[in-house]
């Protein structure tokens, strides 16, 4: 993954993410059965990140505690989505690679077995919680 490909990918991903959040908050389909998640459509049980959109929407309305109760991963996604655009703009305008370098560094850290196992257990626990909540 080169720098420019990563940045293009991030721009497209952010655009898709923001337009999806906008659309979702516009139609307010909280209780609507529609879900884009293939895993949930096939198996009928929630995937590890089901409820992230709802969590981000609740966060937008100021409910920090209920956002965490919906799905803690929503906080991670909200943080990434709010920080990355500015970081991306900073890098592109000043022609630096600070975001790319930290992406590579994060990848390296995530490959350390102990950290990978710990995060995997966290995700698995969150998944079990998701299924228990019946998202």
């Amino acid at each position: 993954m080169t720098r420019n490909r990563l940045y293009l990918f991030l721009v497209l991903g952010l655009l898709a993410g923001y337009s999806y959040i906008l659309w979702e908050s516009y139609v307010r389909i909280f209780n609507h059965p529609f879900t884009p998640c293939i895993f949930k459509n096939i198996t009928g049980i929630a995937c590890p990140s089901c409820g992230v959109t709802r969590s981000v929407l609740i966060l937008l309305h100021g409910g920090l505690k209920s956002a965490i109760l919906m799905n803690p991963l929503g906080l991670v996604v909200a943080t990434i989505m709010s920080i990355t655009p500015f970081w991306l703009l900073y890098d592109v305008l000043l022609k630096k690679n600070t975001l790319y370098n930290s992406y590579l560094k994060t990848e390296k850290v995530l490959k350390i077995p102990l950290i990978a196992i710990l995060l995997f257990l966290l995700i698995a626990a969150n998944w079990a919680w998701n299924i228990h909540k019946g998202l």
Partner: protein
Amino acid sequence: MDSQKVDMFLMTNAKYFQAKHLNYIRERLQAADDSKWAMIQSADLKDPTTSLLVSIFAGSIGIDRFIIGDVGLGVGKLLTCGGLGIWYLVDIFLISDATKAKNMEKLQMFL
């Protein structure tokens, strides 16, 4: 490196690389020193077919990207339910080429 070894390597490992890279690999291997043979043999190459199967069955939570070593993209895929299902579908077509490109990156370190 003598051409017999190079041919043996290419015959057993051709399916792990993109066709456009095979000629380059042959040239570089022939120019490479014999002492690198053991390291090249031990390079951890991933099978594109395996990653395709993983992509179909566990791609919506990003396992395929984790397996080939794209941890950053794997996290992205995990956090978004496989990119709202779209990235999941696209990756079924892209994953075997991505695996081959990653294999090339791994081999490149020794060439």
